[in-house]
């Protein structure tokens, strides 16, 4: 791999690149999908290739190929330079990069049970057992369960002498039950509607205990069919981690991405309301209980690594400190524009995509004092919401709307009746300012999503979120006429 990387860098430099980096990546993915107790699909994919990113005349160019040969390294290095020169014909500000130490070393995700060495039959058996248990509940229309494993070997090299090698391993799994009657379709999933994911090995899948939760998943899906519609009104909400992590993702993770702030995602994902003047003024994003960090060193996170795709070392960067907006997720190009250094957040979706500023593990820190159960016990009148089923937010990340699989009424500190079709909506900073209780370390759990979309051509990022669960006051619940 080093020969290929060196060749691409040399070619690019000889043709005029003032800076170049190359990533040589091998990916392996395995997935099992089970529907209504039978294996619907077992898939395995591999993808190898390399991508070369160059700066020429202050403009970016990038080219990629799946042919790992030296001649192709020459072709791709040269094509990247040609593309950069075309970029330079419509350039107003030359790109400059912040300084960083030369990156060298290796990183490997800690794995107890290598998911690719567990016999396929065993993984299928575990998943089918959980799926069938959920499906045995009377009234369940169909079940869907999934398992996925992902491994990536990545070599990074740059013209400044940086050279790193990393091996990342991640797994995910879920069981889901669906109940349908006339126009009502209700879904219940565990641990999350898209699957629970962590960096690590099969030990994480075992820890989920899908089988142990399957029957409850089925029972709740069926119960939702006859549950009353969640009544509209302004309510106190207690968000389970399975909902809070996505709230965090959409309304804090994305608006603190500095490329969005500077408009470079404007035509697709949008921009951000968290403009640099708000950083300077110490904008109160949330209540004093709200502290949020982007932490690429967090154990088990989908955004945990040794170095980002610009060779910046993994680090923990505060975004919100006791409610105050204090930092961005950034890159070597964007950070200097706000007087900072890169947060190490540049990540690419494989060998054929350029790195963009992506969330690593955007985590909401626990607050010592109350567990999530104790927060519920401390709530006189409210709703406990779990597991997202619909999400949407405007292109500056202000107006959001989420729907959850379940809502439990809280009366006198006790979870009671089940409601269906719960939606809630708000304005980001008003919502986070209304947070008056955050769970302690006892409810702090690492979750995440393997498919955060951004960029053109589209990229899918694997992003972690560790959250404790929290309470919010006076939130609008029940949106629309249905």
């Amino acid at each position: 791999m080093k020969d290929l990387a060196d060749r691409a860098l040399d070619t690019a430099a000889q043709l005029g690149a003032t800076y170049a980096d190359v990533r040589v990546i091998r990916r392996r993915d395995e997935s099992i999908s089970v529907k209504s107790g039978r294996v619907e699909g077992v898939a395995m994919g591999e993808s190898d290739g390399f991508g070369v990113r160059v700066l020429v005349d202050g403009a970016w160019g990038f080219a990629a190929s799946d042919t790992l040969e030296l001649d192709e390294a020459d072709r791709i290095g040269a094509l990247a330079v040609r593309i950069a020169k075309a970029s330079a014909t419509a350039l107003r500000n030359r790109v400059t990069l912040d300084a960083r130490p030369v990156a060298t070393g290796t990183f490997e995700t800690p794995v107890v049970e290598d998911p690719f060495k567990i016999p396929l039959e065993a993984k299928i058996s575990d998943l089918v057992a959980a799926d069938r248990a959920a499906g045995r509940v009377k009234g369940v229309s169909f079940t869907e369960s999934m398992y996925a494993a992902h491994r990536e070997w990545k070599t990074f090299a740059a013209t400044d002498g940086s050279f790193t090698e990393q091996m990342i391993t991640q797994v995910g799994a879920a069981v889901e039950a669906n109940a349908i009657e006339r126009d009502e379709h209700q879904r219940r999933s565990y641990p999350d509607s898209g699957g629970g994911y962590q960096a690590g090995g099969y030990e994480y899948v075992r820890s989920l205990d899908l089988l142990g939760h399957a029957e409850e998943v089925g029972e709740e899906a069926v119960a939702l069919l006859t549950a009353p519609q969640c009544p509209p009104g302004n309510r106190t909400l207690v968000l389970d981690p399975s909902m809070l992590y996505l709230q965090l993702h959409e309304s804090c993770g994305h608006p603190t991405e500095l490329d969005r702030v500077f408009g470079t995602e404007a035509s697709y994902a949008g921009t951000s309301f968290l403009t640099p003047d708000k950083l300077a003024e110490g904008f109160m994003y949330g209540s004093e209980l709200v502290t949020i960090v982007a932490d690429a060193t967090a154990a088990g996170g989908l955004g945990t690594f040794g170095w980002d795709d610009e060779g910046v070392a993994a680090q923990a960067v505060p975004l919100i400190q006791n409610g105050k907006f204090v930092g961005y997720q950034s890159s070597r190009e964007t950070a200097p524009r706000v007087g900072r250094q890169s947060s190490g957040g540049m990540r690419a979706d494989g060998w054929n995509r350029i790195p963009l500023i992506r969330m690593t593990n955007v985590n909401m820190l626990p607050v010592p004092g109350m567990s999530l159960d104790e927060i519920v016990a401390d709530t006189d009148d409210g709703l406990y919401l779990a597991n997202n089923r619909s999400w949407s937010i405007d292109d500056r990340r202000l107006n959001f709307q989420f729907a959850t699989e379940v809502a439990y009424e809280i009366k006198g500190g006790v979870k009671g009746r089940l409601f269906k079709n719960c939606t809630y909506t708000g304005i980001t900073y008003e919502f986070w300012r209304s947070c008056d209780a955050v769970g302690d370390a006892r409810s702090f759990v690492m979750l995440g999503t393997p498919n955060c979309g951004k960029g053109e051509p589209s990229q899918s990022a694997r992003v972690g979120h560790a959250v404790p669960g929290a309470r919010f006051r006076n939130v609008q619940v029940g949106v629309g006429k249905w």
Partner: protein
Amino acid sequence: MVTAREPESALALAEDVLARALRIGATEAEVLVVAGDSSLTRFANSEIHQNVAERSVTVNLRYIVGRRIAVVSTGKVDPEGLRSLVHRAAAIARSCEELEDWAGLPAPAEGMGTITGGVPAWAAGTADATPEFRAEGVRAVIAAADAAGVIAYGSFSNDAEAVAVANSAGIRAAEGRTSAQLLTVHMSPDGGTGYAEMVSMDATSIDAAALGREAATKARASDHPVSALAGDYPVVLEEYVVVDITDQLGYVGFNALSVQEDRSFAEPGRRIGSDLVTIVDDGSDPHGLPMSFDYEGVPKQRVALVDAGICRDVVYDSQTAARAGRMSTGHGLPAPNPWGPFPLNAVMSAGTTSREELIGGLERGLLVTRFHYTNVVHPKLAIITGMTRDGTFLVEGGKIVGPVRNLRYTQSYLDALAGVNAVSSERKTVRGFLGAAVVPALRIDGWTFTGVTEF
């Protein structure tokens, strides 16, 4: 060497892999090869900031032993890579349980030979488009923005691919396909934003300067927006909005898997739109991005989804078709595919109303340019939420009064189709989730806006 320009080379590779799979014990096998060259030039703050190109070949093997099925994909097409591919597939298939209702791979119709180029899907102007060509288009967009005193953002892409399918039931299909897209958002220093987009098989047919002027004009027209109250409004939805309606309905309803799992609203004979609503899926429509066959190699059929407001049919792949006792309509996606078939080529019939008449017919309502981040809230009722963006206007007495800040909606798209009272005579081709749709603008009796934002 397999390249996007030589579909026959992709088919030869597919046949090679198929033979390897059958030699080591597959009782059935299907090989999909996609060889592509993709390039995209992205611009923001009126300059190019990202500019990329890639070349790749992907082989997707569906390997079946009896009723045990494995799907394995690779980008390694050297002999060792292909040998590894088929052996891994065989090992996985042996580990799988039987799929009880496996209906077998699709077979060609009697007398049907290799499908090659059944519809015009390839434009040399797209395959040959260079970084310099794209940069020239971007500069034209930026020039239009400069002239209006606004800032340009967007992307200009061109893709060429060879798609080939070979299966053990006799299907042989190979085709070159091209597509190009230019989209741009313009932002004014006075708070206005505008949008324009064109999708075409032929990159040389895209008028970058005209798109720049369209977005710049819209951005300036939406300067200094004021707040509107949430509530029900009659609306005119531009084409960039309507593609979301065809896409979302395709996802939650017009596919056979959702019907078979009782997740769909679709039911032949059910009225789901006004008389003015007719939607087909047509892979041969030259205004869209044509394709002769699906990712199972089955010829694409023209499927009437909604005819004068009445639901007529949904799209099928081979497995859903077998369950229903009918033939695939040619809407299969690459295996493994838990989502079912999908209408990639939605075409909504044009009406007879000019754009001016559409707006002129609004006594008091909103003109919406584009939606953002739409998502399903209730699938069987097709209730969707999302935001407006890039130009939302209050209309009174048939005239645009001025821009309003963006609103959130939570609306049944079925109720919306039922309320269509006018359809534009002009249509646009707009990129959707997976394919591209040919859609008109619509005027609709009522649309439920459920919230507002600050810009």
